């Protein structure tokens, strides 16, 4: 980076108070302050510290860091170790994985004089970097997520970090872990994400203590009383009220607190080793509960006991859980190799900042639409500017195409993506945007009679859909587009196409429309048992009365009335 370079930091806050817009200050430093989603362009004087960006791509991470190399290395090491720890007590398949690397923008707190006062104040409000108990809980400071990838802005308290080597006290923030769990498809039930996340935050540290703190239950007093007398009173929910898909709605605050605490207790009990194969039973049950109605029969098939016995067992375990730390298992300590850090190129800095700026638009539009043009201009300057300067990195092209779509320049986006297949391949989201545009064209200009699309038109769409589904995570939109293609073809779906639709319905059971489409095709092609399963799941999930009615109609037609 050159001295005195103009640099930009874009930060999005989920909850921000100040709606005021103070645009284009006239002072010499050209500070533009745009709360609530601050984008700052700051001319840094020569004598000031200024960010020198380093860059690394390592596995599923892409790092753009303004921290010193050793701090960045320590951060990545802590991150890697925590990922390894996590893999010891939650199956990999229960967490979100993205083929597109997660991008982390790492900024040292010591450089905060280079960012404006408004942003500094907002950063001070962030609880993550110095949370209760002194653990470093990053990865939730500022996160902007697309269906195929995430960008994170992490503020590192470099002074404390360096002194205490806090890489060894790294722990994912609870909300970030929840995000990883809840973004997995099919979505795991909320009792699991809540229970597991709470349980995870009781992880003991330093790590060689090898385990988890006792269950905090509802309060220290309540836990202490239970420790003193195992028969002490406690609010306690029946299992059928605990094991619901979504957090209880319309209940008292006290009820919700009990629900959350009991969800943690349930996870802890299953992982405590007190139940034969408890861990495997929990995984099996949680995975099943993500895609089918939770019944006592399902529970019994996983845990070998009915709801009442499980409730009693859980309640009996509580007095022990509140005083007994739980042992690991923890990952064997291994020092991950250092990442290959180097100075970031101007193209990399612009691409990453530009993509961040693009992602911010969505939030700005929601919370402060009047400021949108300024943000659009800044993102354009970075992305289009880089393109105009000759950068043809497929990731830049994909970002630029997505930016154009976000700013209603679909033709411009399409031209980019059609001209550069590598761009679409680099981002499943871009691939699906292209598929969507192609499908729209096909439907509005069908090549077959009766408004049906041709095989060529269909394959133009499905090539993109298939390419996107080769990457992780599966994106709901891909299956919706696939269902749209089947709907407009003059033939029934092939076995392969039907399998894809059913896969989509299984992965996204909350999408009742998708589920209805798949079940209808199943019925038409005689796949009755699959149709029945989907309809049952749909009826379990559906909240919309029209969709429910459609499902009931499907349930009553054809062989379903008699054959199942």
């Amino acid at each position, binding site marked *: 980076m050159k001295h005195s370079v103009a640099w930009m930091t874009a930060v999005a806050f989920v909850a921000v108070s100040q709606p005021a817009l103070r645009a284009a200050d006239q002072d010499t430093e050209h500070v533009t302050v745009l709360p609530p989603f601050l984008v700052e362009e700051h001319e840094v004087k020569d004598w000031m510290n200024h960010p020198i960006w380093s860059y690394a791509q390592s596995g599923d991470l892409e790092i753009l860091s303004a921290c010193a190399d050793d701090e960045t290395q320590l951060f990545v090491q802590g991150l890697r170790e925590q990922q390894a720890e996590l893999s010891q007590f939650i199956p990999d398949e229960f967490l979100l994985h993205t083929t597109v690397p997660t991008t982390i923008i790492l900024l040292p707190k010591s450089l905060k004089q280079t960012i404006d006062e408004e942003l500094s104040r907002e950063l001070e409000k962030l609880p993550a970097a110095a949370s209760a108990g002194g653990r470093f809980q990053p990865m939730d400071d500022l996160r902007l997520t697309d269906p195929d990838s995430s960008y994170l802005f992490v503020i590192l308290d470099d002074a404390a970090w360096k002194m205490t080597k806090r890489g060894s006290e790294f722990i994912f923030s609870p909300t970030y872990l929840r995000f990883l769990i809840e973004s997995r498809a099919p979505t795991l039930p909320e009792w699991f994400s809540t229970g597991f996340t709470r349980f995870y935050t009781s992880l003991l540290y330093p790590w060689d203590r090898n385990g988890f703190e006792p269950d905090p239950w509802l309060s220290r007093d*309540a836990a202490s009383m239970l420790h003193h007398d195992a028969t002490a*009173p406690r609010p*306690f929910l029946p299992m059928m009220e605990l094991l619901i898909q979504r957090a209880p709605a319309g209940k008292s605050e006290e009820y919700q607190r009990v629900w959350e605490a009991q969800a943690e207790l349930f996870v802890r009990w299953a992982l405590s080793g*007190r139940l034969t194969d408890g861990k495997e039973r929990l995984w099996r049950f949680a995975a099943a509960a993500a895609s089918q109605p939770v019944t006592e029969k399902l529970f019994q098939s996983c845990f*070998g006991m009915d709801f009442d016995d499980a409730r009693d067992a859980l309640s*009996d375990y509580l007095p022990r859980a509140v005083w007994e730390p739980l042992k690991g298992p923890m990952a064997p300590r291994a020092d991950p190799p250092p990442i290959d850090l180097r100075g970031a190129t101007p193209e990399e800095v612009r691409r990453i900042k530009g993509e961040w700026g693009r992602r911010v638009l969505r939030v700005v539009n929601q919370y402060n639409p009047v400021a949108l043009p300024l943000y659009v201009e800044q993102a354009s300057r970075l992305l289009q500017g880089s393109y105009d300067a000759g950068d043809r990195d497929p990731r830049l092209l994909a970002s630029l195409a997505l930016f154009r779509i976000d700013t209603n320049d679909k033709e411009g986006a399409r031209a980019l993506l059609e001209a550069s297949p590598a761009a679409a391949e680099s981002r499943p989201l871009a691939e699906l945007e292209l598929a969507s545009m192609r499908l729209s064209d096909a439907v509005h200009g069908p090549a077959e009679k009766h408004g049906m699309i041709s095989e060529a038109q269909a394959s133009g769409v499905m090539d993109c859909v298939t390419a996107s589904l080769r990457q992780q995570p599966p994106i709901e939109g891909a299956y919706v587009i696939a269902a749209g293609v089947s709907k407009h073809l003059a033939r029934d779906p092939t076995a392969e196409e039907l399998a894809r639709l059913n896969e989509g319905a299984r992965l996204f059971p909350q999408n009742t429309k998708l589920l209805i489409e798949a079940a209808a095709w199943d019925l038409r092609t005689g796949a009755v048992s699959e149709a029945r399963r989907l309809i049952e799941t749909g009826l379990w999930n559906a909240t919309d009365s029209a969709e429910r009615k459609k499902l009931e109609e499907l349930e009553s037609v054809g062989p379903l009335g008699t054959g199942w």
Partner: protein
Amino acid sequence: MASRPAIGPRAVGLIVAALLWLPASRGESFEAVSSRVSNGYTRSRLPDGSLQPETYVLREGGFLSGEIKDETIDNMTFRDVEQAIEGPLANRRYLKAADPRSANLVIAVYWGTSRAPAERAPGSLAAQKTERLAPARWLAQHPGDGFRDRGPWAFQAKGNAFSQEMIGDEDATLMGYDSASDPELRTYRYFVVLLAYDLQEFKKSKKEKLLWQARFSIGQHHNQFDKQLPQMALVASRYFGQDSGGLRHNAVPDGSVEIGAVKSLGAVDLPNFAVLDPDGTHVAYVRSVDSSPMLVIVDVDRPERMATAKMPSPGSLPNNVAWTEGGLVQVSMSSSESLGYDVDGRRRKIGGPGGGSASTTKPSANLAAPEIANVQKATSKKFPHRRVAVLGSDSQSHRFLLSVSGGAGSTRLFVLDQPNDLLFEVGLSGSSP
């Protein structure tokens, strides 16, 4: 209720009290039970939902005595133990095989006395007296079955290991505890361990395949093994062949009580011993602790304010508990004495300043039938496999005191806070194995 005896509530209360608090030399309240299944073992069910019977042959695993002479266990033979556990096994549809060779299971039985930490001095090893199975005896008892070749010796090896382990730090694990530092292990405990192996698999492959195991124990203090064993086994039998989900504690009826009688009476007479105050904030109930009646007063909303009080009347038993208008708990004793307690468990004079006199609680009998039916309907959904009895409510009919029975061990007391649809488990009372 079909099993309600045709006698007045007060008389029944007295009987229950008598059953619960008979002589102090007997009757620890809680038994620790831990059971596990392995190798994919599950019980099949018949079309009517009942358990598919499985046959077994029992096999003596070993007896481990304590250092202190205890005739209640030292004089027990394997045959005595066998007789005590046959009934409880049958409760879970494990039936003794007419032909040992065709049995589904061979169940190895170990019993004995654990040793307290103070006994674990190295010098005490020699003092251990372990009775081990004589292989010849096994062969004589079970001629021609698949264990002839190696069975007795295989199990003998286990028996040796078992006896060695019992004097080491593995006591806890063997009795189903997680840790030897568990406070319950500071005192001697009678224990029984059942290990159920697949006999047919053994005959076929000569491999021992453990299908389930059950470990149950009870404090030696105030108990007699020969008297308590049948009840211990009966209480533990609820978990035979299934996973208990860790160590469970269940009330064991006193050794002199007929199990059948306790089953019926436990459900009938709890109302006299658990009451909700008119504000719906406190529950008072009596439970047996170390064979003595103990008054427990629970603050439903503030669990840390739980209070207990020992009943100070030797030879006199509580037969009713009520709340007075002055907010005191009034315990009526069989000696016609009335004891008063405040919510902190301190003795107070009934009728004294602020003491009030009469109970203002609404006993279940005074609740309107539709009200009871509604609460029972709501709570039966919450406890699909239990018997729920509505014992009373607060004056606003917002909170209801429930007894829930039918599971393993003790009847549990709950308060249903109807406006919040929230259940509070407030204590254990009575026994219904």
